[in-house]
């Protein structure tokens, strides 16, 4: 918002208002009496007054008294809503005691949002730049980056968070989009298995090396009794409630296999399961 607000008094004439608008190159202003906001007057009101030969009428006669305002501590979104609802060009900003502290126009908001977008874009670019150079900046005989994600059992709402974060990390590291997609799908299926089929949840561990990524999904039970059967397309032990959510079709492991360059599955009933996925970057 603009803090230095140009205002007029209701006792000023429309002729005086014309000068105020012209000199300051503005198209409207709040009307104050003894510091109190009593109305708002715009260039439109001035044109109407000119048309009807009322240029010597007072601002008080021509202003609109039903003033929509926004509070200084309200969010930009609330201001945008008011602009959209009432179609005004400007809104006076008042504090919680009703005192005028500024004025905000649609242009102010657009400029602010653009600046924010630019800042976000720059930040993402910086993140990307730093991340994509990590393997060049740090030298060793074998450099790897390990990302660990804890996965809670039966947390259906949070399911996918780990895969989503891993996907973002890989994008920042500059991995090819087609490979990122395969990794995202495989790790999402693995994460879903941890959420839906384990008693205590588990961990999704991604070890990223310059040439390839190893994703390991481990849990501590209940374990898979028949691995061969579990790998058959369409075989599933998922209960109805999981199927109603759109999962449990018995395609998860096959899907992972299709995305991976290598997949290894080990499991012991009562002990746990370890699924290893290797994908070349």
């Amino acid at each position, binding site marked *: 918002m603009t803090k230095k607000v140009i205002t007029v008094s209701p006792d000023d004439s429309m002729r005086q208002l014309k000068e105020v608008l012209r000199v300051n190159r503005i198209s409207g202003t709040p009307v104050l009496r003894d510091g109190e906001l009593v109305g708002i007057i715009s260039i439109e009101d001035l044109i109407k007054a000119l048309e009807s030969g009322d240029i010597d009428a007072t601002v008080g006669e021509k202003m609109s008294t039903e003033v929509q305002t926004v509070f200084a501590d309200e969010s930009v979104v609330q201001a945008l809503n008011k602009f959209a609802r009432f179609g005004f060009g400007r809104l006076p900003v008042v504090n919680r005691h009703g005192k005028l502290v500024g004025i905000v126009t649609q242009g102010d908001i657009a400029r602010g949002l653009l600046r924010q977008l630019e800042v976000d874009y720059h930040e993402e670019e910086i993140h990307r730049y730093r991340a994509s150079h990590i393997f060049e900046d740090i030298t060793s005989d074998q450099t790897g980056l390990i990302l660990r994600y804890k996965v809670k059992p039966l947390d259906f709402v949070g399911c996918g968070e780990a895969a989503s974060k891993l*996907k973002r990390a890989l994008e920042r590291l500059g991995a090819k*989009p087609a490979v990122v*997609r395969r990794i995202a799908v495989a790790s999402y299926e693995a994460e879903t298995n941890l959420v839906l089929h384990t008693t205590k949840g588990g961990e999704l561990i991604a070890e990223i090396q310059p040439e390839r990524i190893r994703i390991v999904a481990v849990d501590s039970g209940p374990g898979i009794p028949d691995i061969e059967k579990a790998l058959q397309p369409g075989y599933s032990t998922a209960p109805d409630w999981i199927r109603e959510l759109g999962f449990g079709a018995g*395609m998860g492991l096959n899907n992972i296999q299709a995305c991976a360059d290598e997949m290894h599955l080990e499991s012991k009933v009562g002990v746990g399961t370890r699924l290893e996925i290797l994908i070349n970057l």
Partner: protein
Amino acid sequence: MTLREVLQIIEGKVLWPEIDLSIEAKMACGADLMSDVLAFTHAGTLLMTGLTNPQVVRTAEMAGIVAIVFVRGKLPPAETIALAKEKGIPLLASKYTMYETCGRLYQAGLPSCGLFPLTAGTWLDDPPSSCGM
């Protein structure tokens, strides 16, 4: 096909006003099984579904789905919309059934995702070798 054209063809709606309608969908798929979506789609796919939980958005995020169309006039709960906004995945709605929504788009020239090796290989009358996959 742009989302603007999609909306015209299915006489659909956007679920919030700021959706960019110039986004292009290269192909489309209709599914209520998210595992199928993960298995059979490609980046650039438009998804038609009757499932409205947040995992639909997750699936779309992972699979590179460009936008989701909820069929049969179904509307998703607030948490699905919130996640879609966060992930930048446009949500649309169609009052038509899955069959008719897909049919309208297919007729208008939006292709399917094609055959997938996993199902193609199990198609009995068509030996896997002749699928060209």
